[in-house]
């Protein structure tokens, strides 16, 4: 009986990668897999990429609302291979996250963070290029599917060159300014980041997302994150606005407002 159950599991257990290969995604007219849709991650990566128990948030005034839910990490092997000085900076980032996290300031989230923030995003796959539109901070990035181009300038959302490997969209991201963080725990890279993302549908409503992250200035080796990202299946799903600048003005400029005793930078 035990043998029977085991083989049953073997037959029906679904290893994500294998499942993905079995699924034949709907096609665009050009024959490529059609990734169009509105998606959102359901995990705790935006709080902390790594395994973590629940812990208190940086604002006791918010009580349990600002506390961090426990979560299984999305980092392969759970280790981010920081060099010693970078590990110290990550620790300092965590300690100062209430004021220093670029998310608190409503700055553009950068890559990879944009993809697993608790806001929906839309993939707009044309017959040529592919636009990622993120609800958070109206950020967006155009993935150039033509001849790869060099980054004209460092930016928050990077220079994105894409190509297809079968049904997997592979995006090579360079030209990141390194000012964005990866999560609210202070994980970070620099303007030397090179990220290779892989996106493929494992069934109609799930994207498999993987990113390989390299930055020889802060890590001893390349490391990898992966997670499923879910289609927002509501019939009337749409991106709304999260133009958060106005929510961050008091944090950023409060000390310069009249009556705050400001005037000093």
């Amino acid at each position, binding site marked *: 009986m035990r043998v029977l159950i085991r083989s049953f599991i073997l037959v029906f257990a679904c290893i994500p990668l294998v499942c993905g290969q079995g699924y034949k995604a709907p096609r665009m007219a050009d024959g490529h897999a059609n990734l169009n849709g509105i998606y959102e991650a359901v995990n705790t990566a935006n709080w902390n990429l790594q395994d973590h128990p629940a812990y208190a948030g940086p604002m006791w005034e918010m009580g349990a609302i600002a506390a961090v839910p426990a979560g299984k990490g999305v980092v392969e092997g759970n280790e981010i291979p920081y060099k010693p000085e970078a590990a110290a900076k990550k620790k300092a980032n965590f300690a100062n996250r209430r004021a220093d996290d670029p998310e608190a300031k409503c700055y553009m989230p950068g890559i990879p963070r944009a993809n697993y923030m608790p806001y929906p995003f839309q993939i*707009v796959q044309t017959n040529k290029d592919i636009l990622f539109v993120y609800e958070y901070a109206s950020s967006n990035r155009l993935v150039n599917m033509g001849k790869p181009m060099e980054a004209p300038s460092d930016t928050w959302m990077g220079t994105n060159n894409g190509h297809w490997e079968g049904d997997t969209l592979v995006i090579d991201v360079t030209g990141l300014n390194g000012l964005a963080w990866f999560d609210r725990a202070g994980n970070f890279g620099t303007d030397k980041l090179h990220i290779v993302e892989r996106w493929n549908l494992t069934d109609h409503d799930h994207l498999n997302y993987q990113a390989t992250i390299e930055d020889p200035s802060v890590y001893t080796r390349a490391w990898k994150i992966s997670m499923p990202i879910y289609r927002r299946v509501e019939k009337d799903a749409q991106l709304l606005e999260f133009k958060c600048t106005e929510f961050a003005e008091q944090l950023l400029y409060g000390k310069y407002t009249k009556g705050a005793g*400001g005037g000093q930078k």
Partner: protein
Amino acid sequence: MRVVVAGFLLAALATAQSYTPPKTPWGDPDLQGVWPGNMGVPMQRPANFGERATLTEDEFAKKQEQAKRQASADAESTAASDSKAGIGPPSYWVERGKPTKQASLIVDPPDGRLPPLTPEAQKYRKEAKLPGAWGGKADSPADLNIYYRCITRGLLGSIIPVVYNNGNQILQAPGYVVFRNEMIHESRVIPLDGRPHAGSDIRLYMGDSRGHWEGSTLVVETTNFTDKDAIGSNGAGYPGDPGYHSDQMKIVEKFTRTGPKTLEYRATVIDPKTWTKPWTMLIQLDRNDDYQIIEYACHEGNYAMTDILSGARAGEQK
């Protein structure tokens, strides 16, 4: 005479409709491409033009001459030499546009000027403490207009050309059109499936857009606006008026390709709480395949806000 007039009207209609754009692989008219805005056409027409919507040859020649002089002045100066320019960019950054014969962006009413305000809107403009531009009160960020605050320029402001970064891009996917604006970075995703608007408690700076095709023209109706921004090139009004609209505003946009590299953009503003009549803007766009839209990180680089506020505080201590 009537025959001549009718013929003229037909010809006018034909110019807008005679071009049949290519189709996307899924069968929609293809409007895709980068269509940067062109500076230089005033929003409202000078009153002495009356109902004349285009410049005479003489006026156009003068405008071209002026543009030439400006271009050589721009090339010579490497930084803003006028101290009053303050936080403005060096002149060689500034786009001046290619001169055209269009006398004003507003084409209806026929005099090219905004229709009169309703009494309610007049009262609001007089009594409300509306945020101004730099140089005015700066007690807190809320005293500055939303362009200075890098929040948005609003739906219409985002397409009215300004000093630089006037890129507009249209992208299409089955069931969607996206209108992307470089300045401040907007990507307005417009569903084409006829779904109803979002509930009326959902208010958006860029509004809630729904599109459909009328022949080869994309027609987009947008509602659910906030009343916190204003219509004007800088999201903060047009010369002489703060440009505030109500949250009852509806905008109907029409995107029509008139040739392989030309697109006519019309937007009709219907806001009976603010203007006594609807009014329409016309913006002619030329496709530029070499134009690369670059990320405009406005808020992230908003040193002006810190400087304006801390400067105002320092001034109070004198």
